[in-house]
């Protein structure tokens, strides 16, 4: 890029062609006051605090929008301009009701810090004192229009990063408000509650309900880690104060690869489950707290007395790290000597594994590949919880003119941006996918019959086949809803289409969004039970479940009959722990550390919080139990196993 030279406040600075004056200033350490500008969002010049004088122009310009060019002479930090900025601030303060002492953001607020900087100790303008509403309808955050400066950051973030554009300005002039949808309360609008607007708001206009008024961000420890609420593994910043997570933010907007959804941003803070803190044994139908020693003895006694050990079902949560999962597998196969070891959502990859055998290699497309695709098939995705991929999909649609095809029999939030939405009758995804797969392979297929059976229009179906056939980089993204709605036939069809279309840069053109953070690793570890096993059904007489803090999945219990012995590692009370004979308290993912392998890539994740002193971590309990049962596991377990190690 061509280098250019500008004169700013009398000094010469260098910049690159295509940058704005503000970019050049920031790169050269020149301080320009800004409010509406945010890195990662399109500059709009709404607040006019970055006003500059450009020689040869008879009006003020804004540094954030003014393109830098060679030989430009600019004045920024002059007395006159600072007075102008002070007046702009007075307008902002006079327009709405800004009372710092009652404001949640006081101390973190960008408007307040500008007022300090420009020593705004009085307002020469008459206060407007408008009567403005507060919209508290969303469960997690509220919009207080009294504090809004109409910078439009939330609107741009909602549009450009999330890709939803729920928020926008309504009314005009002094009556302008940031509103959702067509002037609806947030809860009734199409808002998915991802909370990015809370993160970008410079004042206290959009604030998080749980963390508000409790702390100042600067007083917290900010820890960067990876979210483990689902299989995506988004980068996440957790603000910890006094050993508790108090606020969660996504990465800076410059990295729009993944932004948080409401599960990552709020659900961790809104945790109202009842924590289990002591080991318990069921006596006379009721769970009684007992010391750990007694509980371990009880388990050893009951398991040693079993005649038929191979019938023990061992399930671990996919939220555990590689080393814990590996230890659990050894505990099941070597100590308990049972073949039935699996993850709680083993049904997930059981279907996929079978389909993958034909492909040989099992590396799927990464999130980066999505933005390079020219055709995207979205099947069984839940936008509300997995919106991070939304921005990538949007990027593909915008920059590569990718065709977006949605196949879903239920309401789907991608529908508004899709080119074709195939909407078969309920749970009819497999019929459509099978037909598409056959058509692409070139097999005989009666499309008319398929259309009739799935209640979908024939021309839509033909259009999709044409699109997929024509595409060079067609990527299919599927989520857990597909397994539930379409079943294994649908998953198999996806991988058949993938085989036919061929690999992209050596990777299978499929991205599966798994329900738990470490599912793909569990898959590599071959944590697979025999067909049919994997849930609490009639045949299971003894079960050892290491559930941890994963949300209760009703799919797990298929029989009303209780097993003879049910041992559960659980963090919170759930319908499973109320069935259990033995309950061992477990950690939460915030308290664990280890290697993980989410969709965003393998990494080591450290623990964020201290676990309560009364709780032993799962690895210690299993090792201890294994030794008492005479198993081969010692205390020294391999700590780190990467994907490379496993292949050897």
């Amino acid at each position: 890029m061509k280098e250019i030279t500008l004169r700013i406040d009398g000094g010469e600075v260098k910049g690159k062609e295509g940058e704005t004056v503000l970019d050049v200033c920031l790169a050269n350490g020149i301080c320009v006051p800004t409010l509406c500008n945010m890195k990662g969002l399109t500059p709009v010049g709404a607040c006019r605090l970055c006003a500059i004088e450009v020689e040869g122009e008879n009006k003020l310009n804004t540094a954030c929008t003014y393109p830098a060019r060679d030989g430009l002479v600019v004045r920024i930090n002059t007395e006159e301009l600072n007075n102008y900025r002070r007046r702009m601030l007075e307008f902002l303060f006079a327009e709405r009701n800004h009372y710092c002492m009652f404001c949640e953001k006081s101390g973190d607020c960008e408007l307040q810090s500008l007022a300090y900087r420009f020593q705004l100790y009085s307002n020469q303008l008459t206060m407007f004192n408008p009567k403005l509403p507060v919209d508290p309808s969303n469960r997690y955050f509220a919009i207080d229009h009294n504090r809004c400066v109409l910078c439009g950051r939330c609107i741009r973030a909602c549009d450009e990063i999330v890709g939803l554009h729920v928020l926008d300005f309504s009314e005009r002039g002094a009556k302008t408000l940031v509103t959702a949808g067509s002037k609806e309360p947030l809860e009734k609008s199409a808002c998915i509650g991802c909370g990015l607007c809370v993160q970008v708001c410079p004042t206290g206009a959009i604030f998080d309900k749980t963390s508000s008024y409790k702390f100042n961000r600067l007083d917290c420890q900010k820890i960067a880690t990876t979210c483990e609420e689902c299989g995506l593994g988004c980068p996440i910043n957790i603000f910890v104060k006094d050993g508790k997570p108090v606020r969660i933010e996504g990465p800076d907007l410059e990295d729009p690869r993944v932004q948080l959804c409401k599960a990552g941003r709020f659900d961790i803070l809104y945790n109202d489950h009842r924590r289990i803190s002591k080991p318990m044994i069921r006596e006379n139908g009721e769970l009684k707290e007992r010391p750990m020693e007694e509980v371990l003895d009880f388990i050893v006694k009951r398991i040693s007395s079993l005649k038929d050990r191979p019938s023990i079902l061992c399930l671990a949560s996919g939220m555990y790290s590689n080393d814990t999962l590996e230890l659990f597998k050894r505990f099941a196969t070597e100590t308990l000597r049972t073949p039935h070891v699996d993850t709680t959502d083993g049904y997930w990859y059981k279907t996929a594994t079978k389909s993958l055998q034909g492909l040989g290699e099992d590396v799927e497309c990464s999130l980066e590949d999505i933005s390079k695709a020219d055709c995207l098939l979205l099947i069984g995705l839940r936008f509300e919880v997995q919106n991070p991929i939304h921005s990538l999909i949007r990027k593909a649609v915008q920059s590569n003119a990718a065709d977006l095809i949605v196949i879903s029999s239920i309401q789907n939030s991608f529908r508004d941006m899709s080119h074709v939405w195939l909407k078969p009758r309920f749970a009819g995804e497999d019929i459509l996918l099978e037909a598409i797969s056959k058509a692409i392979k070139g097999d005989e297929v009666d499309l008319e019959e398929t259309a009739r059976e799935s209640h979908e229009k024939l021309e839509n179906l033909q259009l999709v086949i044409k699109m997929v056939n024509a595409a060079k980089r067609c990527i299919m993204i599927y989520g857990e809803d597909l397994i539930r709605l379409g079943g294994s036939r649908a998953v198999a069809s996806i991988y058949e289409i993938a085989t036919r279309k061929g690999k992209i840069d050596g990777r299978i053109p499929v991205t599966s969004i798994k329900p738990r953070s470490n599912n793909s690793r569990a898959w590599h570890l071959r944590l697979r039970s025999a067909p049919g096993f994997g849930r609490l059904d009639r045949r299971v007489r003894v079960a050892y479940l290491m559930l941890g803090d994963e949300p209760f999945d009703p799919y797990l219990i298929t029989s009303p009959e209780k097993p003879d012995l049910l041992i559960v590692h659980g963090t919170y009370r759930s319908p499973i722990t109320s069935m259990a004979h033995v309950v061992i308290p477990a950690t939460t993912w915030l308290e664990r550390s280890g290697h993980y392998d989410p969709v965003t890539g393998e990494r080591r994740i450290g623990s964020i919080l201290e676990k309560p002193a009364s709780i032993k971590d799962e690895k210690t309990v299993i090792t201890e139990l294994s030794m008492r049962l005479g198993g081969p596991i010692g205390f020294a377990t391999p700590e780190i196993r990467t994907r490379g190690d496993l292949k050897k």
Partner: protein
Amino acid sequence: MKISTVWLSGCSGCHMSILDIDEALIDLLKKVEVVRSTPLLDVKGFPPADVGIVEGAVATEEDVETLRRMRDSCRTLVALGDCACFGGITSYRNLFDKEDILSRVYIETESTIEGKIPQSRQLPPLLEKVKPVNNIVTTDCYIPGCPPSPDVILYTFKELLAGRMPILPSEMASFE
């Protein structure tokens, strides 16, 4: 240096903060003479002074009159605290109508039986909107804070005694 202070519609917290400068007050009183102070002295009228300190916002017609007389009798007028500078807590009533506020306070409060809005002519009528000091008279100096800390107040006095108009450095100011 003669000082005159007045307490308009506020909580007298800023005056408390003046007293809160503790032992420095002894030295200060050697150099200044307090000729009038609403919460501290029972002086009627507005004796002339070098510095007039105003606490509180302008909420009633009496406040307007008092403030005008203060302006006339003082050479330098200092607005002390958030209420005097911006309107502060007192101006929160601007978010409601005057009639609603009076009825809420005198009639609808949970502990009131058969309440009525006081109508006596001796009571100063409320203004439609609460205003900061500089909306009524010219103000020379602003010291924000709720209340301004004793350090800030002491700094203000020192600057005034030195014959300078106090401008708070950013790091000393507080809007909370």
